[in-house]
């Protein structure tokens, strides 16, 4: 058991460090902070709202993740396939699960780092007023959890192809669908022909209803269960995809 963890950790370390071995990490972090800063201060007018909370920041995260998380995950497997290192990785004494867990947690940790680096916004709010610290911490925890769901989708699409661009686009489309599938124009597409239970099921897959409570600082056990189920499901499908298309 410890040996298994040791290998996941070795993969985690390599993958996490690899972000910083090229300019990718720095470009990503700067772009993330600029984008969220722009939306929080220029679009949502954090200062003018005169409310000491971070709603103005958190409501934008699902949209910023949509663009940036696929960029951070598109290389996870596609690059291993393209360069042939997947053959090296999977002929070392590891199980597929070790490799998937190591990579998933590395990308998730990287996104979490980006999220945590927005702390100056929290400090600003704390300096200007008296925000509820518990609420802000819950919002951060919930947002990181939601980011995990984005990462798991990105990892899945990356495993399907050796082209990072295809991985990026597929992941963006699936994430967009997950964000929008509770939205009326999308449910309308189903209403005309599908039974009500199907429409409800599709709508219930959406990230957004689970995010609404999180963005208010309420972390419900059902929301946690929802995001963890998405992550587990996507990791499971990734396992199947790689098992079947190792040398493709």
């Amino acid at each position: 058991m410890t040996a298994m963890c040791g290998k996941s950790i070795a993969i985690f370390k390599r993958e996490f460090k690899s972000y910083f071995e090229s300019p990718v990490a720095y470009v990503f972090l700067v772009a993330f902070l600029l984008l969220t800063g722009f939306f929080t201060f220029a679009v949502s007018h954090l200062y003018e709202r005169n409310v000491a909370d971070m709603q103005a920041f958190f409501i934008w995260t699902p949209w910023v993740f949509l663009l940036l998380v696929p960029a951070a995950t598109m290389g996870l497997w596609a690059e291993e396939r393209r360069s042939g290192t997947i053959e090296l990785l999977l002929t070392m004494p590891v199980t597929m699960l070790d490799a998937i867990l190591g990579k998933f947690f590395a990308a998730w940790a990287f996104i979490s780092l980006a999220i945590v680096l927005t702390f100056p916004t929290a400090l600003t709010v704390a300096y200007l007023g008296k925000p509820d610290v518990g609420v802000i911490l819950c919002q951060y925890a919930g947002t990181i959890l939601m980011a995990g769901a984005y990462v798991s989708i990105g990892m899945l699409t990356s495993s399907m192809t050796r082209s990072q661009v295809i991985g990026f686009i597929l992941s963006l489309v699936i994430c967009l669908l997950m964000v929008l599938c509770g939205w009326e124009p999308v449910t309308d597409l189903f209403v005309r022909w599908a039974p009500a239970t199907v429409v409800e099921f599709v709508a219930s897959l959406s990230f957004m209803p689970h995010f609404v409570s999180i963005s208010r600082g309420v972390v419900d056990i059902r929301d946690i269960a929802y995001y963890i189920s998405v992550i587990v499901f996507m990791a499971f499908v990734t396992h199947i995809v790689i098992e079947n298309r190792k040398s493709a």
Partner: protein
Amino acid sequence: MLEVTGIAKNFGAIKAVKGISFKVDKGEVLGFLGPNGAGKTTTMRMITGFLPPTSGTAVVCGHDVTQDPVEAKRQIGYLPENAPAYHSMTVTAFLCFAAEMRGYHGSERDGRVDAAIEKCRLQTVRYQTIGTLSKGYRQRVCFAQAILHDPPILIMDEPTDGLDPNQKHLVRTMINEMASQKAIIVSTHILEEVDAVCTRAIIISNGLIVANGTPAALKARSSTGRLDDVFRMLTIGREEAA
């Protein structure tokens, strides 16, 4: 030490490997010959646990690669075709990663990495990123990760492909240095290599073994006594027939 029995692989309707059986013992260097597309790489990928065989199996030091893949892979050092490696890492960082994947940590890890660097003559480039190295060095970096854990079985897919004569000589010297303590499989389509390093050779063509014997025995099958002629005689007819 390594026993392959009736291993076969289909990719859809294409039968890449049609049932190959052979054994390799300690102290042997088995040359794996065949024209391009004969199934050499596919066979090696099945033995190393990368591809699941359609039928048959390989038993590595008593561990069946289809039943107990992690334990089987632990016994093998593998140098894949084209020597893949993570190009953004330095040589030392890459070998440390390989050592950790083999379960070595702390000073034991560093000792293993240093020994492998020395054996593969990589001292001068150990802090360079792999992407900046020439093909010969990259080959040796990948070779270093294959021997780092001192595996009883070493499998190399075209280890000298694309190297200059000096580098080829170096790789062959390294293989010869280890030959007595390991069971080694080397795939190649360069026939001079068989004379240089192999104790036995298998020729495969169209996914089947067409010859298995010592280099001398194989040469004796042709009136000219040259390995090239044996190779052509055994593989060309089959390709045209197929």
